[in-house]
């Protein structure tokens, strides 16, 4: 069986979505814990029906927010990796520089877009974990993609090294990174890593976008269960209830992206948008909670 044949890709998709994949998604609540403690969305109501209605509203708003802000980064990374793969087929020399440079740009954009401390931590923790496990544990990746992943990892390590040295101005060359790429730095945000890895594993763009939304929904429902908002069985039922909404969110994104790609939008795709400023602030308020179960 070929490594990127449709049947193999299905198995890969299931594994990437598996809760057993050690990327740490379950450490984040997307602001649900803050909403609960700050008594928003009626999440502290004793009436279960009101509580569930509030949770569904929160989930819908979170999905829409993540889709409008981060799906463009996932999709852009997926498309950039596709272009880079085509480039690799022509020439090996210098192409990894172009690949890493493009990814590092998306990573920087992602960092500038996420303006909550907790959100940044959550995104980089999951991105780094995904990168770490992909580097050495996915045998079906091509050698070029493996090389890219290692270079990307070194780039991030270089940055971490600088931070540990406590001298950003010192800015020595990142560890293991060639001299001509030492001006690059990266943090390893989840959205670009996820989009890039999906393309490298042969997952198509639409499925990749759906997968990202699924992860948001899955982690959110897991957080709701751990926070005691609903039981595990009710969480399954509610998650299934939300699939229609999730598909509407994905459909709207794909429609807008196709429209903006046709009219020459941001690098041929749909640019990110912040459409829910209040939810954004709520997610940032997680930092102020006295006691916290989740990282964000």
């Amino acid at each position, binding site marked *: 069986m070929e490594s990127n044949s449709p049947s193999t890709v299905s198995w890969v998709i299931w594994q990437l979505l598996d809760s057993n994949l050690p990327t740490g998604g379950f450490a984040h609540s997307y602001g649900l814990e803050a*909403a609960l403690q*700050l*008594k*928003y969305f009626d999440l502290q109501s004793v009436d279960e029906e009101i509580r569930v209605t509030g949770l569904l*509203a929160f989930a*819908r*708003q979170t*999905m*829409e927010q993540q889709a*409008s802000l981060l799906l463009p980064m996932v999709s852009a990374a997926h498309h950039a990796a596709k272009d880079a793969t085509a480039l690799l087929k022509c020439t090996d020399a210098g192409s990894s520089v172009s690949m890493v440079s493009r990814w590092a740009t998306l990573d*920087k*954009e992602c*960092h*500038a*877009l996420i*303006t*909550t*401390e907790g959100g*940044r931590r959550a995104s980089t923790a999951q991105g780094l974990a995904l990168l770490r496990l992909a580097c050495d544990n996915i045998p079906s990746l091509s050698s070029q993609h493996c090389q890219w992943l290692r270079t990307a990892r070194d780039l991030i390590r270089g940055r971490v090294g600088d*931070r540990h040295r*406590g*001298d*950003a*101005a010192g800015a020595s060359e990142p560890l293991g990174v060639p001299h001509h790429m030492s001006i690059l730095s990266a943090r390893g945000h989840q959205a670009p890593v996820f989009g890039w890895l999906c393309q490298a594993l042969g997952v198509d763009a639409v499925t990749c976008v759906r997968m990202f939304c699924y992860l948001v929904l899955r982690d959110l429902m897991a957080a709701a269960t751990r926070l005691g908002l609903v039981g595990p069985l009710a969480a399954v039922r509610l998650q299934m209830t939300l699939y229609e*909404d999730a598909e*509407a*969110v994905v*459909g*709207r994104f794909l*429609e*807008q992206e196709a*429209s*903006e790609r046709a*009219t020459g939008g941001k690098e041929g795709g749909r*640019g*990110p*948008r*912040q*459409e*829910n*400023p*209040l*939810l*954004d*602030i*709520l*997610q*940032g*308020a997680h*930092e*102020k*909670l*006295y006691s916290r179960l989740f990282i964000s």
Partner: protein
Amino acid sequence: MRPHLGASSARSGVTRQTLTATVAPSATLALLPDFLTCFRCVKVRKIVPLLVPDSKLFFSVSFSHKSGADYEQSQEIRMLRGGNLVLVDWYTSGRMGRGESWVFHRLSSNTRVYMDGQLLLWEPLLLEGGKGEGATCSKPSSASASSSSSRLTALATRMGSYHCFCLLVLIGPRLADLIQQVSRSQGRPTFQAWERGAAGPAEHRAQSLGDSACVSSLCHLIDGTQGKKGQGLALKIAGKATEDVRQLLKSFLAPLASVVGTEPYSGM
């Protein structure tokens, strides 16, 4: 500092404002505008004189619905290391006295701040009327507007009971004390303060988000060295009333009086 400001009202009905500025080392750029308010759709009454064959003059009164405000704003600030920036960008839900609440057509604000060519902050805000809002105000011009009907949650629902939102950006060595001061005010409230609602800044006193006059979220933009926070932050504030946010801005930015010559937001 080399600012370039442009504003236009294109035939499409979209009002645009573009600001591009470069901040040189040791220079300070303070953008301290009043809040932005986008209006709802207005009913326009047209009186047209009609001359009929029997020479009597009649006036025909026709009503047409003009779409609500459609506003686009782009701010690009390019800083060189050592430059200083105070940026305030705030907007309200509409003319609250007339009962307007998030009923304008579209508000788009794209703010980018660079430091030595590196993107530090990117805030691509987009607020569009959602389901059922401005239903009488058809606006076919924008491609994105056509898909707003499929959004799950309407704009007014998303914004909750908050009517004023603000982005405050502070960057630069000259603002180090101010940055530390704002940063400290956003620290985690003590358990006692949280429980009793007796101490701390106003936004910490309330027992729940629904009761708070203002909520805020802070993010450091520049990595600190040796464990210290960096010289740059972005603070996002949501207020139930414009005055609540203005008071916060006034208290935060009072130390700027020595730079700009007057206390910002003290005389509105």
